[in-house]
């Protein structure tokens, strides 16, 4: 079996299609993340789709290229995600509400018009970051361990 992450010379089609497909997948992930509360989607799926976009880059090019494009420490990303989720959940305690009580309201934002803002989205952002962080940590660690 060949090394799936080594750069091959005859992947022209895969490489050139990856360059724009990745962005489409990534945009779709962002859409899924925000759509979650009303239509199919959410932080977990959004995170997985983002991770799969990154995996595609990894397969088409190699781990070094991915690192040059996105110089992110995915372990820290995981930690930040956990922190956001826990803090969002404990935020309710400040208002003397039980742990994990969410709050939501409608705001008139410029450009978007009447928009619903919900603390559940902040929690979901944490979930998103953890999912991307963990998936990429695992793949990167195993991929690099030569």
């Amino acid at each position, binding site marked *: 079996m060949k090394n*799936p992450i080594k750069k091959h010379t005859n992947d022209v089609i895969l490489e050139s299609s990856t360059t724009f497909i990745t962005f489409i997948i990534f945009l779709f992930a962002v859409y*899924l993340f925000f759509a979650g509360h009303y239509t199919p989607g*959410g932080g977990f799926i959004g995170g997985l789709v983002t991770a799969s976009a990154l995996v595609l880059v990894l397969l088409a090019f190699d781990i070094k290229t991915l690192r040059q494009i996105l110089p992110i420490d995915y*372990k820290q990303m995981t930690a930040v995600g956990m922190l956001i989720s826990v803090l969002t959940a404990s935020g309710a305690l400040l208002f003397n509400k039980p742990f994990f009580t969410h709050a939501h309201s409608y705001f008139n934002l410029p450009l978007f018009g009447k928009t619903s803002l919900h603390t*559940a989205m902040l929690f979901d952002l944490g979930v998103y970051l953890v999912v991307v*962080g*963990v998936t990429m940590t695992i793949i990167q660690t*195993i991929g690099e*361990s030569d």
Partner: protein
Amino acid sequence: MSLLHLAILLPLLVSLFIPLLYKKIRSVHTGWFVLLVPLTLVAYFSQFLSQTMAGKTVVATMKWIPSLDINFVAYVDGLGLLFALLITGIGSLVVLYSIYYLDAKKEALHNFYVYLLLFMTAMLGIVLSDNMIVMYLFWELTSISSFLLIGYWYERERSRYGAQKSMLITVFGGLSMLGGISLLSLLSGSFSIRESLAAVGTYSGDPLFTVSLVLFLLAAFTKSAQFPFHIWLPDAMEAPTPVSAYLHSATMVKAGLYLVARMSPIFAETPLWFYLVSSVGMFTLFWGSLNAVKQVDLKVILAYSTISQLGLIMSLLGLGAAALQVDIIPDSLYTVATVAAVFHLINHATFKGSLFMMAGIVDHETGTRDIRKLGGLSQLMPVTFTIATIGTLSMAGVPPFNGFLSKEMFLTGVLQVSESGLFHLDTFGLLFPFFAVVGSIFTFVYSILIVYRTFLGPKQLDKLPKKPHEAPIGMLIPPLVLVSLVVLIGLFPNLLSNTLIRPAAEAILPKVIANGGTIPVEIKLWHGFNPELFLTILIISAGTILFLTLPKWRSLYHRMPKQFSLNHQYDALLSRGERTSTAIHDTVMTGYMRSYLVYIFGFIVALVLSSLYFLDAFRFDVNPLSTVHAYEVVLVLVLIGSALSITFARSRLTSIILLGVVGYTVALFFVLFRAPDLALTQLVIETVSVALFLLVFYHMPEISRKEERIKFKLGNAAISALVGLSVTLVALASLSQRSFASIAQYYIDNVADLAAGGNMVNVILVDFRGFDTLFEISVLAIAGLGIYAMINFRKTGGIDK
């Protein structure tokens, strides 16, 4: 939270700042800051004296886990206060002593004082808690802090051995106490000691009551180093001397005595309690003193002496239980044993504390504790010599020191109970005076031995590692305070009788008070010519003869075969345990994932199928099933086909692709059943995990499937078939029977109102069951970091960087 709770927790709170003080203020010995804590607490606790003297008690409750009836109930009575004053009083002296004993430049003082303060809180917690679960918590905390303090010089092999031994034995006792507490609270319906006592008549006939009694006694015997659990105490002498003086003679080892005293009102009417406590105590008194004579290390002699003295107090508490047989004894004649126990407990803390400090001084100034190398130090260290003489004479029971008084009372108690005819004592009751006298004779011998071999006899300065001289004044003050108490109590014993002894004895024997009796605490130096006096004369003269002829009979000790000794048994038990667990581990843990999967799946199959069978849980009902469509049949066929082909695939790559087919087909099912969230998730997960599998398999060793034996393959086939079967059965059974209504309707009704959302799946994930998600991402994060750590650990060649 009251001031009382704060007082108990004060050492723990202060300990948080000790490392900071140690790091920032290096010019001042950290001990000076620590010293303030016990001093404050002594002052605080002494103000309760007037209340306990009047027979009153103080209770303060702090809610902790009210739903489980576990609250931090601080309870001060005579017994608890006596211990609290001992803990803080001796604690102050020991901290002062440690300032001169431990070098600020060389020693890790921050560790030492944090452990010591932790211990102080734990010990105060034990003696001032009414809730048994809270008491248990503090009880184990003393074991842990004792472990840390014995292992303080952890680079020494003997320290680690001693720490482990004490931990194993005392924690074993602690766990059995937890069992005892559970049983007792089941019977009495409360974790409170006072409430359990109030209801004792209603449940004392239950057979579990006796089990609980034995479990409590196991805890007391292990903690107070009673035979045969005493073996940890001599090895605990590897701790720094202040620790030995504090934990292993004055306070922690007395926690077992405290427990016996505290539980006496509940258990003492059972004859078994009387038998066990008094005979184990008496035999420990004998055995400890017998073994002390053959030791050569000054601290180990003192350790055996402590074991023996703890046995003495334990037996007194047992004999005192006779006083609770109020039906038989209307007047409180037998209270003398309990009074003697309390009195000797105080006396032992004073003379044994001073003797340990003396041993520490000798060790510090000469560099050795081996009595074969010491000798003739009386001219070089006159003050230490004085301390040692007074301390040992008191321990030997020579007048006019306090040890004499309590020893006389001990003999009185023994003689009275053995003559009483209670519990069929007329038959073997004579054994009690016999063991008491023989134990006292050997106590006399080793007491003289300590002074003679260290301070008198020939000088052998060439054998000492250091040139000896008198200790600094700071190290002498604490033992001097203690020996002056020895003399003071010896001459004026009634200073204590109403302030400390009577309230404590009343707390141990509440029934005597409740029945209108009194506990007379008149301690006299001169009783006239009575049997006790003659016994004392006998002890002193026999002891002198034995001491003079010691070289002639000492060799008898070596006659005892080594493999029968308890220490040998303990070591053998440990090494056997290690060997057995290594053998089991080596057979079970093969290092192959497939073996582990066989265990896991085999267990699941056994569990599921047997519970389906024995609980008669399988039901099959066709009604809730919906009609099957053609699409679904096709998909199922694809599923079965690809799943079966995995087992015949030759390469891993093929297997992964086939597994991917299974996953995508399941995703199609979700599409058919109109679950877009699940379908989407399933699709993406399949994609990512195929990529992951490819990466992982690249690193896997090349093992052909053909190498496996056919028997192994058949076993695997059977297990996988059974796993499939049991999952199918469970799925069918759970579909066919519902014990309660589905929660689905609740979600449908409330998703817009309560959570302001439109997508139920996602609202469940982030809101209704947000806790689940929070824990899931935590597990995910842990798994990710675990993989990262493991793989990088392997890269460094197993060396932790």
